[in-house]
């Protein structure tokens, strides 16, 4: 069974909606309470990133099953300005508009797999996966 949930990010409340959808999915997959917190927080960071810098965008939460393992894939897609220097964006404390800093590199630490694909003027897609242990 494949379960996918999509939340469009348009305002602050959508950030809450996205992380609640993430927590529900994590609970459904029986992630432990710490991983639930990691996943929910990662979604919150990604959703806020979209809201602050890259509207319009969405968060896609998808259950994945591979080699007898279950996991949750979070994809943050936006049609924002794109990231010029991805390596720099992954440095702690780096921010282009005096914002949060902790966000993106933090997400990388909270999740098991992490990938960014970005094109200037087109948008950014961040994919993060957490596997059930």
């Amino acid at each position, binding site marked *: 069974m494949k379960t996918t949930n999509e939340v469009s990010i348009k305002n*602050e*409340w959508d*950030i*809450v909606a996205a*992380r*609640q959808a993430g*927590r529900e999915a994590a609970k459904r997959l029986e992630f432990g*309470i*710490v991983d*639930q*917190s*990691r996943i*929910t*927080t990662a979604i*919150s*960071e990604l959703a*806020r990133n979209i809201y602050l810098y890259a509207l319009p965008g969405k968060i896609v939460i998808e259950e994945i099953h591979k080699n007898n393992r279950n996991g949750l894939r979070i994809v943050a897609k936006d049609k924002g300005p794109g990231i010029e220097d991805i390596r720099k964006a992954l440095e*702690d404390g780096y921010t282009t508009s005096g914002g*949060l*800093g*902790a*966000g993106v*590199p*933090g997400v990388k*630490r*909270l999740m098991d797999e992490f990938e960014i694909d970005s094109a200037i003027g087109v948008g950014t897609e961040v994919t993060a996966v957490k596997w059930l242990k």
Partner: protein
Amino acid sequence: MRIPILKMYDLLLVSIQVELDDISALELQEDLLNKIHETTAKGVVLELTSMEIIDSYIARILGEIVSMAELMGTKVVLTGIQPAVAITLIELGIHLKSANTALDLEKGIEILNDIY
């Protein structure tokens, strides 16, 4: 959603029991500072036991509340941060070093009473 702020003798008590969105967090910041000013409370306990998630933004607001209240002359203690939330915050790279913390509400009140 306005978060209630309770006055208890010369302390203020805030227990966050809802999923805190960004706007409510900012409102709480302003409401609490106004309430400190109004009541001249000597200390504030921010009770966080029910919070299942604290992300970088909410953490920043909490840290700012601590610093702003301190600037006014009032100590804030954060209490009851859940293990999962503590793990996530540190992994995220957020240490909230300037904040006084306590395991629970009782210990938070003790800390404030000890300070003064």
